């Protein structure tokens, strides 16, 4: 008996060992093939200095590179620059550039080219919407063929993070000079892929750059197809016409779990969804009422129902993968506390708090449904919200009015901290110098201590110091309940099993630079 048992156990062990070996074979990426991704919109203009939307930048970043890159984990890493150093005054930066790199048209990437591109963004005639990211730069100069010097007017801590932004892409000066305003139809960069064709309204196709200085791509081509309807895009993924589909409706995740041909990736993004209060107009001049709303709204329930769990309840005004983030104790759902605050402020069920709540429709994931949920939840605490929506262009115009004309009481918006740095996520939204039309502090929030902290955060180079500064600023902003804090969106992307190595970057870029197709 014992011998049989021993034999059985040994056989089982051998079997288990064989199984685990079979389950994890070494997978070699296969070369070749055309990967197809479905986006919701077409590229707008293929010029990194002028592009504004995520789909266009996704396409561009396959072809055009920046001096530094923001990794998927939120770290700044050298790319076309090899190293950087800053002088003691904190204002003079020296960047050593990678040598032997050529643009897709054969012209060299060197210090002259780097200077050309930075100057181009800084030149007001270019009309780059990203100029403000590096506007503190006063001069860019060529030290030698592979070194440039950048001088800022004051120490500017977020400079490297801002240089990772897609708007700072290095493009061929020769091509830009030659094509002028038509450059935006056929970009020339240094990247893993180069431009092949753009059938307007239908697709952009990029092809492998065989002269790339680093690891060459596995794929032959990548096609970025335009499929505006969410349902049709998902159907195309299920039918196998495309390999990747962005923005899969969260409600479909449950059904797709059982699929053997595709998987749904839920990944973080850098976009925070919030409701801002106009703190200069009644009723939300009263902090207790802002806090009451924060306690009354069950953010977890909203994420679970409207977003099928695919979002992260905010515990800070910025998303966790932003440099400078720390978790701030927030407002958990507490109906009693909400009602107590309302009573203290003089409201009751007989005399309810009333406000008008503006929200967009179809701009953010399930924005109208979330607004309706907030209305329903607020009603349980005795707060009556009237919902109003507008087409997005008109909505932005309405919320961007200066203080004197801005009669909005509360409005929903999203903010993507695309530089991955807290300065971008906080300064423009909470500093008192950033009231519209200058900036985006459309709630007209003003706190002297927060102003001081945000200013200091910009000029402090040491990251751990900055983390402390931003933590204090965010604590004050949270206590002041400047916003009804909601959630940070997740990206819900469908990927077919045949597509491997697809990277989904928090800045809403789906990258095929290391991707391959299993045949």
């Amino acid at each position: 008996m014992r011998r049989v048992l021993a034999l059985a156990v040994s056989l089982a062990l051998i079997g288990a060992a064989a199984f685990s070996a079979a389950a994890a074979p070494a997978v070699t990426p296969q070369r070749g093939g055309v990967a197809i991704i479905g986006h919701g919109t077409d590229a707008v203009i293929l010029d990194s200095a002028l592009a504004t939307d995520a789909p266009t930048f996704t396409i561009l970043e396959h072809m055009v590179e920046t001096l530094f890159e923001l990794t998927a984990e939120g770290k700044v890493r050298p790319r076309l620059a090899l190293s950087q150093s800053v002088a003691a005054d904190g204002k003079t930066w020296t960047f050593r550039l990678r040598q032997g790199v050529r643009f897709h048209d054969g012209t060299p990437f060197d210090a002259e080219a780097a200077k050309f591109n930075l100057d181009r963004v800084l030149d007001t005639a270019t009309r780059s919407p990203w100029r403000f990211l590096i506007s503190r730069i006063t001069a860019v100069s060529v030290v030698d063929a592979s070194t440039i010097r950048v001088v800022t007017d004051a120490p500017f801590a977020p400079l490297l993070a801002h240089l990772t932004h897609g708007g700072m892409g290095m493009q061929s000066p020769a091509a830009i000079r030659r094509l002028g305003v038509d450059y935006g139809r056929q970009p020339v960069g240094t990247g893993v892929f180069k431009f092949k064709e753009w059938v307007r309204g239908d697709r952009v196709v990029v092809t492998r750059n065989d002269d790339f200085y680093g690891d060459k791509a596995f794929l032959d081509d990548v096609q970025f197809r335009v499929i505006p309807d969410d349902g049709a895009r998902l159907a195309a993924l299920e039918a196998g016409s495309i390999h990747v589909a962005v923005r899969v409706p969260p409600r479909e995740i449950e059904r797709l779990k059982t699929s053997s041909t595709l998987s749904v990736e839920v990944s973080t993004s850098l976009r925070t969804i919030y409701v801002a209060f106009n703190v200069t107009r009644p009723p939300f001049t009263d902090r207790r009422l802002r806090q009451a709303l924060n306690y009354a709204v069950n953010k977890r329930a909203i994420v679970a129902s409207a977003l099928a769990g695919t979002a992260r309840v905010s515990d800070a005004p910025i998303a966790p993968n932003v440099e400078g983030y720390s978790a701030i104790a927030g407002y958990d759902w507490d109906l009693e506390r909400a009602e107590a605050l309302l009573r203290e402020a003089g409201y009751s069920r007989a005399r309810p708090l009333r406000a008008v709540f503006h929200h967009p429709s179809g701009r953010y994931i399930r924005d109208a449904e979330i607004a309706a949920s907030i209305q329903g939840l607020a009603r349980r605490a005795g707060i009556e919200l009237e919902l109003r929506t507008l087409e997005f262009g008109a909505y932005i115009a309405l919320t961007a009015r200066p203080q004197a004309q801005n009669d909005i009481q509360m409005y929903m918006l999203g903010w993507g901290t695309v530089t991955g740095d807290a300065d971008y996520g906080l300064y423009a939204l909470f500093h008192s110098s950033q009231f519209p039309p200058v900036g985006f502090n459309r709630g007209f929030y003003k706190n002297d201590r927060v102003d001081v902290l945000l200013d200091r955060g910009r000029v402090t180079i040491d990251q751990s110091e900055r983390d402390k500064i931003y933590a204090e600023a965010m604590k004050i902003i949270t206590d002041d309940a400047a916003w009804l804090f909601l959630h940070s969106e997740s990206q819900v992307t469908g990927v077919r099993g045949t597509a491997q190595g697809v990277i989904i970057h928090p800045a809403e870029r789906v990258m095929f630079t290391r991707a391959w197709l299993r045949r």
Partner: protein
Amino acid sequence: MWAYIAKRLLLAIPVILGVAFVVFAMVRIVPGDPAQVIAGEAATKEFVEAVRKDLGLDRPLLEQFVSFVGNLLRGDFGRSVRSRAPVVLEVRARLPNTISLTLAGMLVAITVGVTAGVVSAVRPYSLVDTSVMLVALAGLSMPVFWSGLMLILVFAVWLGWLPAVGTGTPAHLILPAVTLGMATAAIIARMTRSSMLEVLRSDYIRTARAKGLAEPSVVSRHAFRNALIPVITVVGLQMGTLLSGAVLTESVFAWPGIGRLLVEGILTRDYPIVQAAVLVVAMAFVLVNLFVDVLYAIADPRIHYD
């Protein structure tokens, strides 16, 4: 006849100018500062002002309109404010797609609609008639974004017979054309049926039967051509509607046509695109109307133009 056609084409010019004025004015009256929308939600004030100046939106309206018409007469539709590409390029990339979808849709609509209408008319109030009209009603009532998605689900996802979305091969045209054609087929079917019924009741048909002609001959040679006039009218109107952009069909099937271009242009306040797209659509309507009028003359020898 040719003189008539030439005259009609000349008359099209003031029509187009009128449309140009209306669209120019409307696009500027709609709320939402275009410079702000074009600059983007994350744009600074200086940038928005720079955009405004660059687009000439700070010039007086009359000056803008004069320059717009001047360029138009030279065939210059300007550049898209978002992509900075010549508008002609955007329109030229999409117009063939809209034309092919419209023609395919109309082919489906006419084939199915006229056949259904004739079949119903020759057996009025029978089971065939009732069921055909019921199906027509269903086709008319189904929203395009639902029926389109259902067709994609059945034929592309479940059966895998046809491609789901996009363009490229004739096979790509089938599902969008059927989706688009269904509603129009229903309208044509009802129109054909009522027109045929009326014609079949007339005296000359009774004469034809009295002469001893076989029923199929009566229907095809005598009744059908006479019933066509109202049907041609409907076909002409529907074709204009389809050309102006079956926006929903284009969105569901990712078909890059004029309709989607127009809607995207409106949402992004891309004036030059909106102006060009509306003008193209107006031109299409004018041409379709002319074509329909010429068809009348061919179908009915009693109609003369001079």
